[in-house]
């Protein structure tokens, strides 16, 4: 009868090193994957929250634009003036002074009172002409 190998028995069950390394690598990869996944999910949530915020802000902007348009509308301006007791009227012809600037000197001259009145405007001067 063959004698029992005592040395071998003392070592007991040995986990194969290549398998252990493989499992460790797999475990690390899995951990890395989970980390990446968690990060991606967090970013996804952030993007979704920003998307929702963008929608809200866009709606808000539209509402403000609408409100601003309404405030600038002639009817609203007139009502506001009325509320403040202000009266605006178109100027009479004799109340208007037409001034034009010469292209080179920049001097302006007042319309002579004897001349027929013109309505105020900035006349376009073609400098390259």
């Amino acid at each position, binding site marked *: 009868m063959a004698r029992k190998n005592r040395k071998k028995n003392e070592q007991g069950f040995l986990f194969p090193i290549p398998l252990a390394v493989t499992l460790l690598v797999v475990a690390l990869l899995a951990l890395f994957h989970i980390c990446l996944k968690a990060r991606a999910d967090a970013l996804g949530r952030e993007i979704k929250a920003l998307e929702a915020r963008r929608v809200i802000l866009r709606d808000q902007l539209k509402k403000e634009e*609408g409100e601003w348009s309404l405030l600038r509308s002639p009817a609203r301006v007139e009502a506001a003036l009325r509320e403040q007791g202000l009266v605006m009227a178109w100027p009479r012809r004799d109340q208007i002074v037409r001034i034009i600037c010469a292209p080179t000197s920049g001097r302006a001259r007042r319309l002579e009172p004897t001349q027929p009145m013109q309505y105020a405007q900035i006349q376009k001067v073609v400098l390259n002409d």
Partner: protein
Amino acid sequence: MTDRDRNTRLEWLAVALALAFAGLVVRLVYLHLLTDETARQSVEDKGTIVKPILTGRGRILEGSKAGNIVALNVGMYDLCADPALLAKSNLTEKVSASLGPLLGVSPEELRSRLNQPEKRFAFIAHQIPDDLVRQIMDLKSPGIFTRETTLRRYPQGGMMCHVLGFSNMEGVGSAGVELIADKYLKGSQGFLESRLDGRRKEMYGWRVQDIQPQEGADVYLTLDENLQYMVETALDRAMEKNRARGAWAIVQRIRTGEILALANRPNFDLNEYRSARSEQMLNRAIGQIFEPGSTFKVVAIAAALNEGIVTTNQIFNTENGRWSYMGKVLRDYHSYSQLTVSDVFKKSSNIGAAKIAILVGKDTFFRYLKEFGIGRKTGVDLPGEEAGLLTPLERWSGISVSRIAIGQGVAVTALQMLGVVNAVANDGFLMKPYIIRRVVAKDGTVLYKGAPEVVGRPIRGDTAQKMRDLMARVTEPGGTGTKAAIEGYRVGGKTGSAQKPVAGGYSETDYMATFVGFLPVENPEISIIVTVDEPQPFHTGGLVAAPIFKEIAEQAVRYLDISPATPTGLVGP
């Protein structure tokens, strides 16, 4: 513990793990391969979200420098409920009592709406603002939830209502520019398909399809909000003063055909379009035809001058205000024995105009009518335009030529009549009117550009010049349109007071009063037509419509900075 025992335990552990693993494999195989298809689909569906992403309809902006928004979409919410869940939780009563006052609905009415235990979905309120939604959601009522939606808003209410039109609850353009430019305004809906997590929250990383919506393009109009306001307030005053049935006016830029203002009375609030009556919604300026009356003498006299048949100084016998032609009597409002062609126009003599048209001849006159665009749509970019009525030449009676010359037996829209006068003011060129200046996509691409377009040239430039001078005399002392005169400007125009046709003839009491004109005569910039339907107590164009024309024109020349044609102002050194 001996080695043997330890090995045995490890073996048992391995067996247990193997069994557990095998169990998992069996379960997986069962779930994936052997489960009923419908059950598997149901699980799949529960974890999937498929929803359209709403897009904003494009904006409409007016054409002044401010470029104010006159139509836009704003985000709103529909308030919904799960009546079955409410019934199951025995909360129908409580929810009705808490929501009713917030929504302005009686709790009883709300309870009857929610008391449908067999249903899983019911609308409670449509298009409610977000501050109210917040209040409602703060109540944390189970079975109450919201759905995003959009609402078309018209910040100016009733202003420009007939031009803008409106889009319906489904966001489809149903009238006005909203209808005609619907393909640009509507944009395209987005689409999202994704997976839900255990808390039924969408997982960004699992999006299968994420198609972003394309927002609708912005439509820029030629209409100027400030001019429009001037016109609308003038019409409001005119309606009140003349106790009229309706009134409408158009302001157009002569050289380009751009419509700067177009208004009708009665009108309606675009935000409440569902409660508007049909007569309020009619765009009369392009959709109501009427006999133009004396304003139509422009066509007859322009045709005669262009053909060289008459000269402006040629004298016509105006028969002391009563003339029988082919057995039918024609009368003048004021009687004159004889008048020059210029005075026939200035005094608006029916007999003179009829005689001139007879000289032109019906074939030639008909040709001019066609060339001036009578009986044909102008092609303005608005829906609901009428073509007018022009009887085919072969059906003309013996007196047709004499009656059509004075604006009877023919029907036009205000826009057509304005087009005729524009052609006179524009050296004979008939322009196509337009109201959409451009359409711009969100990325700035110009999708459409309205541009001036010459439709025809019914009269020569020299004839147009003569006609402008004739029309200027109408607003000078002795003319029928003196109330349209503006200090410092030469105004060309023509009055029209047409009896309304009734069964078997013409009404003795109901008139259409019109004034159509342009200014300044020397270098025409804008043209305006004003029509008042059934004014009381006065009914002539000169008394009713001309003052409205003046009111609009006086403000318009200042606002648009239109100088009197002969500049005598400052010059540079």
